[in-house]
């Protein structure tokens, strides 16, 4: 396919009063192929309409160029026809006259009879034959927009530009018009660019969705390829497995933009008090049973006890929000999967490597692998049954859900599958989905199973849609679950705050580990600020909610539970490299030294009088009994039978330096 539109390094600024300028867009680069349908999505004021106007030539960029069919766009023209949001019909002309105006203007050389035929064809195409003599004021909004579309298409543009074309219409009319537009675009192989606010509209219509960040200085925050097969039907498209992940991707992006905007709107002064460098902290977490220490530290006043009297817990819907929050500095610290510090430090999140420090392991265990109930009904009761099932049902897509590539769930699930001769990338398809979506997908059958933590795995069981095929105790008892993570530069800038935070959370962990507190924890976490679930599904004992058992489901506190462990992070590095998430760092010793803030932990534990917890754990050994030799990680990696191609590379982190300002 050939490129029709090339947008190169576009920048647009508007003059403000005085000599100031407002930078609306910068560094926008986009290629649009012939026949492609592109949506521009973003919050109000992100410059998406400005971008459209620049493609149309109604507005000129202050930097960069737009090429349509190889020609620089300098002025508007009928080859780049625009369908405006408010229809822009001339009210003194009838439907037919409005379309005729455009056709007569653009095709003056065509004989009158042919022009008339073009006009009539397009009126019929949008189904407005009976209304062709009516004036716009006599038509409904949907009909007016159909006239505008007919007028645009009648002059045979190379490129159709739509500026929130259906924004002002009711849902039913909008749906009908979207289908009509898609049908027309398919039939005529039109190239179109549409500005929209509507996530579903974007997913339904587009080949690619361009997401713009907030202004000033909006950039392309991401481009999504919509892999839904065409022709698309409104009702069936929502059942496609990609639909919801695309949708949640966009919604995640928009929410993220909103959060950044809100964060920027607040003043962010560093409050130093009580000898601590910063006491106003934004702590990110994802609603899980393992977030209990954070909730307890807040509710029981452990933060304030250690001088952190302005801590705010920020609930993220996915781990991605935590990663992005640390990258852009909107979060001070976060509860994160134990693989995330190593993953981010090695640059697994896609940006430049960002050293992340962990001074505390907050929880261990509490995870499990769930398979769908319908598999059990077909005789799948253990992993060997599942392998046979996969072999006999090869043509079906076998999706398994994980919450994040760097989470222990992913690594354990992959390790478990691979040990049972199921290649986690070839035999099944591992997909990152938010937990709530996993339950829904498991229920409607588009997911074979998933590996997540409590309370989600218990809920699948309780709802009767899934069963636990392997608990984490059967895979790696005592594996690290969630850790506390901060940026290295943050830790260096606020060392006393870091220790205070570690102390507060370590004390909270101790509180969470006490069986007599579990009822209270369930109650606390059931609150809307945290999990927002019934407290009956949130439990902390291994046997369930009956309250009598004191065998813990999660390990929050104890000997060797909380101390950050270099060997565990090393094991995680090997596994991330094994599955191609990161190259294995040749300088892994340096990286581990920087990830594990053992000194911070030891200071915190000593000052709390909890010296006993700082003993190191024994060697790492998973259910298959293969020993992990911490001195030869590459040998360990080479010895496994199933792995992706991985490279060993030096990961340049630069010298540690504190956060500026």
């Amino acid at each position, binding site marked *: 396919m050939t490129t029709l539109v090339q947008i190169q390094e576009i920048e647009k600024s508007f003059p403000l009063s005085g000599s100031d300028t407002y930078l609306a867009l910068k560094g926008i680069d986009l290629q649009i192929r012939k026949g492609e349908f592109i949506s521009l999505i973003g919050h109000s004021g992100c410059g998406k309409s400005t971008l459209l106007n620049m493609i*149309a030539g*109604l507005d000129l960029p202050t930097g960069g160029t737009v090429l349509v069919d190889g020609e620089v766009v300098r*002025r*508007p*023209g*009928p080859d*780049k*026809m*625009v369908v*405006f949001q*408010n229809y*822009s019909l*001339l*009210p*003194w002309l009838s439907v037919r006259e409005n379309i005729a*105006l*455009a056709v007569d*203007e*653009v095709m003056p050389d065509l004989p009158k009879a042919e022009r008339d035929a073009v006009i009539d064809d397009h009126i019929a195409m949008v189904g407005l034959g009976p209304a062709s003599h009516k*004036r716009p*004021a006599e038509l409904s909004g949907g009909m007016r927009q159909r006239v505008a579309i007919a007028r645009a298409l009648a*002059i045979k543009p190379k490129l159709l530009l739509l500026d929130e074309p259906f924004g002002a219409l009711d849902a039913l009319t909008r749906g009908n018009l979207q289908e009509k537009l898609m049908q027309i675009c398919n039939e005529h192989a039109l190239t179109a660019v549409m500005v929209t606010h509507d996530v579903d509209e974007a997913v339904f219509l587009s080949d690619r969705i361009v997401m713009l960040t907030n202004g000033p200085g909006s950039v392309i925050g991401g481009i999504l390829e919509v892999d839904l097969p065409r022709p698309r039907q409104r009702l069936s498209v929502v059942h496609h497995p990609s639909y919801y992940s695309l949708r949640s991707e966009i919604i995640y992006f928009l929410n993220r933009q909103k959060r950044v905007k809100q964060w920027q709107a607040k003043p962010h002064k560093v409050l130093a008090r009580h000898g601590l460098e910063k006491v106003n902290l934004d702590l990110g977490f994802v609603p899980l049973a393992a977030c209990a220490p954070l909730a307890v530290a807040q509710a029981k006043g452990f933060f304030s006890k250690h001088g952190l009297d302005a801590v705010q817990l920020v609930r993220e819907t996915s781990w991605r929000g935590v990663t992005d929050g640390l990258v852009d500095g909107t979060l001070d610290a976060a509860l994160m999967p134990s693989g995330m510090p190593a993953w981010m430090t090695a640059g697994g999140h896609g940006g430049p490597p960002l050293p992340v420090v962990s001074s505390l392991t907050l929880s261990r265990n509490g995870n499990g692998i769930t398979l769908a109930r319908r598999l059990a009904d077909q005789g799948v009761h253990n992993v060997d049954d599942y392998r046979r099932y996969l072999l006999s049902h090869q043509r079906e897509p076998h999706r398994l859900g994980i919450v994040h590539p760097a989470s222990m769930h992913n690594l354990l699930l992959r390790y478990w599958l691979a040990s049972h001769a199921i290649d986690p990338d070839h035999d099944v398809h591992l997909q990152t989905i938010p937990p709530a979506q996993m339950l829904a997908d498991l229920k409607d059958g588009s997911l074979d199973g998933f590996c997540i933590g409590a309370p989600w795995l218990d809920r699948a069981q309780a709802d009767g849609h899934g069963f636990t095929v392997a608990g984490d105790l059967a895979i790696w008892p005592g594996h690290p679950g969630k850790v506390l993570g901060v940026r290295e530069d943050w830790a260096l800038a606020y060392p006393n705050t870091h220790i205070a935070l570690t102390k507060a959370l370590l004390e909270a962990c101790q509180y969470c580990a006490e069986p007599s507190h579990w009822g209270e924890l369930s109650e606390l976490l059931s609150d809307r600020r945290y999990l927002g679930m019934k407290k009956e599904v949130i439990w902390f004992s291994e046997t369930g909610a009956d309250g009598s058992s004191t065998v813990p489901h999660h390990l929050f506190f104890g000997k060797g539970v909380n101390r950050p462990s270099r060997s565990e992070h090393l094991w995680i590095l090997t596994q991330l490299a094994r599955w191609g998430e990161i190259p294995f760092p040749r300088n892994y010793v340096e990286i581990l030294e920087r990830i594990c803030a053992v000194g911070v932990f030891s200071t915190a534990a000593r000052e709390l009088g909890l010296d006993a917890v700082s003993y190191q754990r024994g060697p790492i050994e998973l259910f298959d009994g293969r020993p992990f030799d911490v001195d030869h990680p590459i040998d360990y990696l080479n010895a496994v039978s199933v792995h992706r191609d991985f490279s060993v590379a030096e990961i340049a982190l630069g010298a540690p330096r504190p956060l500026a300002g």
Partner: protein
Amino acid sequence: MTTSTNSTSSRSDRSPTGLPLWWKQTRKAFLPPLFGIGGFLLFWQLSATLGLTKLAGPLSLFTEERTRELLFYPFFDRGGLDKGLFLHAMNSLSRVALGYTLAAVVGIAVGIAVGLNKALDRALDPLFQFLRMVAPLAWVPIALVLFQNNQPAAIFVIFVTSIWPILINTAEGVRQIPQDYRNVALVLQMSNRNFFTKVLIPSALPYIFTGLRISIGLAWLAIIAAEIVMPGTPGIGFFIWDAYQNSYVSDIILGVIWIGAIGLLLDRLMVWLQNRIAAGQ
């Protein structure tokens, strides 16, 4: 008004037909103004009869023989300035027609130019705002000096009084052309000529008509002023002035009634034109 009467009649239990129905439907529209006008005339007549004022009452139109003749015979022409009131009015109207047409042509043309060109607008707007505040009567001496002749001077006074609302409204109408329409023209790469005839004029038309309607009233006001000050030209203004010189009070009243009636008719005419031409917007 009509809808409210309709709904009242449909709500009543008895449904009259024919003449009673017509009366039922129209009495609300006609009775109040009838009472208002009747009351006013009665009060006027009473105050004149009782000698509260020197002004003759409305009945003097019929009681004074000269006035009665003028009232019933508007078309006579004894040559010179001794004409029926219809002919006087026609003289005035033709002057108005000339001055007003001139004002409309110049006003619309300049209005469009000013509306399209911001620099021109900024240059001329203070001047227009100033000139439009000058009363018609104040223009008379200037006009007389300028033209040295009653007839063109009278036309100039009408022109200069009635041009401003047309000009200012046209300019506003052009400025108010929605950006959407301009964008459509831009995207279609319309020629200037087509933009002018197919977008600009139709879009500004309601504004232009508003200006024209305000101006016709002003033009009619101006002609009376001009003729009163410039005697010796046949016209309704002169007629009133002449009657005043001769103390024919009832003639003055008749003249005033003619002026009011013609003014009203002109205004209705413009409304009718507006509805016909600029309909659907």
